[in-house]
């Protein structure tokens, strides 16, 4: 990736943006059936609200596993670009995953964190990022060389655009506000899984080669 894009500001100077708006900007750039794993809470609500693509997976539970699930998809389908969307509170529960991603050197993986410094869905209690924990610094320390704070919306779009045609792993952290999400995901786990697998052209026996439409 262009070094200029990765040469960014620190958390303090990063613009506080809107999660719903950034999610829509991301989805608008996805033209090749890229997979997107939306983490628990408002993260997947906004992914849902940005348009129900067949290649979206929505996590109704399990804080911290959006990135590991995306790792699994990326390992299974190296030809497909895979995005994980996660909140700061969730990522803080599974920081070891950043080391796993760095060690696997997954070229087709992008992890995006919406850092609003709070557990917004449970009443806005502050997370430790609000007290100065810097997720980009942690990403770099974990071995993710391409770890970057988003300066503003234009920078975010440029990073997403560049990620589609350059090697990952890429770790993007964006500061976001506490505006409510733009929608609420339909809470049907089995349906979510089935639609996602159809979107990835995989049958329920976990086999790509023999995929023959919806199970």
């Amino acid at each position, binding site marked *: 990736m262009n070094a200029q894009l990765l040469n960014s500001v620190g958390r303090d100077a990063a613009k506080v943006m809107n999660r719903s708006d950034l999610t829509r900007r991301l989805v608008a750039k996805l033209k090749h059936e890229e*997979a997107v*794993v939306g983490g628990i809470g408002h993260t997947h609500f906004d992914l849902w609200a940005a348009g129900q693509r067949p290649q979206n*997976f929505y*996590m*109704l*539970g*399990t804080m*911290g*596993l*959006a*990135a*590991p*699930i*995306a*790792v*699994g*998809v*990326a*390992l*299974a*389908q190296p030809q*497909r670009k895979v995005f994980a969307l996660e909140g700061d509170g969730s990522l803080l529960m*599974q920081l*070891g*995953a950043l*080391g*796993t991603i760095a060690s*696997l050197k997954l070229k087709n993986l992008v992890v995006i964190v919406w850092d609003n410094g709070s557990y917004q869905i449970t009443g806005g209690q502050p997370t430790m990022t609000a007290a100065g924990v810097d997720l980009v610094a942690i990403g770099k320390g974990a071995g993710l060389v391409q770890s970057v704070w988003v300066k503003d919306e234009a920078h975010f779009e440029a990073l997403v655009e560049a990620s589609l045609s350059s090697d990952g792993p890429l770790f993007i952290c964006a500061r976001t506000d506490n505006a409510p999400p733009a929608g609420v995901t339909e809470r049907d*786990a*089995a349906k*979510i*899984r089935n639609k*996602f*697998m159809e979107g*990835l*052209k*995989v049958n*329920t*026996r*976990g*086999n*790509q*080669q023999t*995929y023959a439409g919806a199970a």
Partner: protein
Amino acid sequence: MVQETTGPAGETWDETLVRVFKANEIKLITYVPDKVLAPLIKRLHADDYFTVVCPAREEEAVGIVTGAYMGGLRGIVLMQTSGFATLPNALASLTVPYQIPLLMLISERGTLGDFQLGQVIVCRTMRPILNSLNIENYAIERQDDVEFIADRMIKQAYATQAAAAMILSPLLTARVTKK
């Protein structure tokens, strides 16, 4: 020192499991280390057929294998009893509701002569957790049963889209066999 149990074909349990994994196209191995599983892990690392990932926690391994399944790559999580005890939330909020055929191979610690107090206590929680989540589980106790149990549990998991926990009992992994 533990001596490996040998079956009728002269195979050890870890050799049989490698064969069963391949027969079922289980290509992705995730694990958090365990001494009992060490010979199997060594074998898997040495075999190019397998992609082997060692994440920081068992939960992460569950996430990776879940994503891989949905992407069309079959995988399994290898762990010991204490590692399994970290998983109830992931199993209850991801594996079960999303109907993921998550394969788990658990080395059963904390029974039949373990020296670790923590393992002994946490061991009591394993089957109650598996049973309360209605997750298929079966202990493998004899070399003669390794292929039958593992192969059938794997096939059932994918056929029914439900998780399966294969428990490696010390009766299999720690028993000295008379030759």
